[in-house]
């Protein structure tokens, strides 16, 4: 699975968690920073992580989750876990 596909999946999850009606209204790329999204609060963070885990059948450690500042970091972790 390519990084682009992973970013698209994260984007779909974020649209669902943020309850965004118009998908075109949200810009999310591999360079995006979590801090830039006002709706990305602690509850949204937990929901996004657990949805990612459910979709890819993976599990992050708390230490890994603490590093989630950029989408690129999340993508890296997902890619490394699904390769194994």
């Amino acid at each position, binding site marked *: 699975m390519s990084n682009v596909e992973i970013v698209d999946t994260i984007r779909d999850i974020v649209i669902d968690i943020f*309850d965004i*009606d118009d998908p075109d209204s949200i810009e999310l790329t591999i360079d995006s920073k979590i*801090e830039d999204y*006002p*709706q*990305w*609060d*602690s*509850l949204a*963070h*937990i929901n996004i*992580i*657990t949805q990612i885990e459910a979709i890819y059948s993976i599990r992050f450690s*708390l230490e890994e*989750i603490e590093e989630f500042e950029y989408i690129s970091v999340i993508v890296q972790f997902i890619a490394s876990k699904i390769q194994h």
Partner: protein
Amino acid sequence: MNFSIIDQLSFAKLSQDFNPMHCDVVLARRYIFGEPVVHGINAMIVAIKVWSKQHELPFEINRLRCKFNKPIYLQDEISFEVNDKNENIRINAIQNGEIKIIIYLNVCEKKSQFNPKEKWDLFTADRPNDIPFGDLDGYSKKLKCSISAKLAVKMYGKEFVDKIGIGQLAEIVSFSRIVGMHAPGLNSIFSELQINSDVVEKKDNIFFKVQSIDERFNIVNIESNGPSFNASLKTFYRPVLVKQKTIKQMKDNLNKEEFIDFRALIIGGSRGLGEFTAKSLGYGGAKLMITYAKGKNDVTNVSKDIKKYNKSVSLHCLDVMNFQDVDYEILKKFDPTHVFYFATPFIFIGVKNKFCRIKYDKFKRYYVDAFQVIVEILSKNNTQKKHFFYPSSVAIDEQPNDMLEYTLAKKNGELLCSELEKKYPQIKIYKPRLPRLETDQTVSLSSVKNEDPVAILKIIRSMK
């Protein structure tokens, strides 16, 4: 509209969800939301009722997804935004531009429904289950699905009860009972409900089972099936109450008689840092007056612990928000040498990158206006040297983007302290910017590290 404490108690009776987070004003102030919050399911039903006013026919729910994004407090003015342009209806419960609850609803024409028992199968426990998190995995139970139709009509009106049907309503309120009273029970937060009507087996009870728990985030996932619905309930195990240590447990960090010259007034000493300070000063021999606003039982327990070592403790009810009702003569008569100001509302109510004037005003009343009144009352026409402790916050340096109102009020409080020191040269105000210390104000669902309140002892010792 807003929800009153009467609404809370009515829904508690209807659903048999008597969780103190919804019904007990004194206990709820120590839980994660700081005040009683509306039963999410009650708010959801009210939202569906708002939508149903536009439709005359009775209906059945095919699918429903409800996200309880933010707590609704009793005083919150809630409006509902309905979008039913297609078959999937969306309803938002909004307060001050912030979406608290989102409901996705898909309904069909009403068919036959199960008829719930009119009488309650009385809940025998008078408190919700208090099950340790680790024991919840696999927990299951079968409940009778019953409801008081009379109370339902009183709460929601006959027209709506007839439209939704008493059977569906009975099952929907049961979800609140499952979460608030059974699993997770006492320490619960309802996060999301998903229901669908693909039920194969007809019955008059509802069976639920905890399918999984996630110890990283304290998530408890529950599945249920009942007369009309299969449901998934996503919940959190709410952080348990933070109890401050007893003096016996604190003694290694304290010295007897080190505060014997203090005549200390502690504003807000029933819990948290106020409780910690009262115990430290009490063990150190200070003469104490401790005030409380709501937590009479809590402060009585604090006093009992102190009195094992120091009999000079008096308690006084004082709500700094009601200036006109406060008997300041008692405070003046006590004439403290040291005043510790811990009066505070619930802190963590901000929204990321969004400033709310109402929230700011509330913080300001506590951290600026009321503190000023206390200082003025005790310092005017009184030349005795006095030391005031004003707990400021590192939030002023760190500026977290979801605590704008709190941060600004504390910053203004600091400026006020400087002005008061100029006005009353006999007083000194200590205003340390404290980090997050372990109290019931700072508990969180996420893994936030809090420091031991013992950190403030150094500052108290410097106030001599």
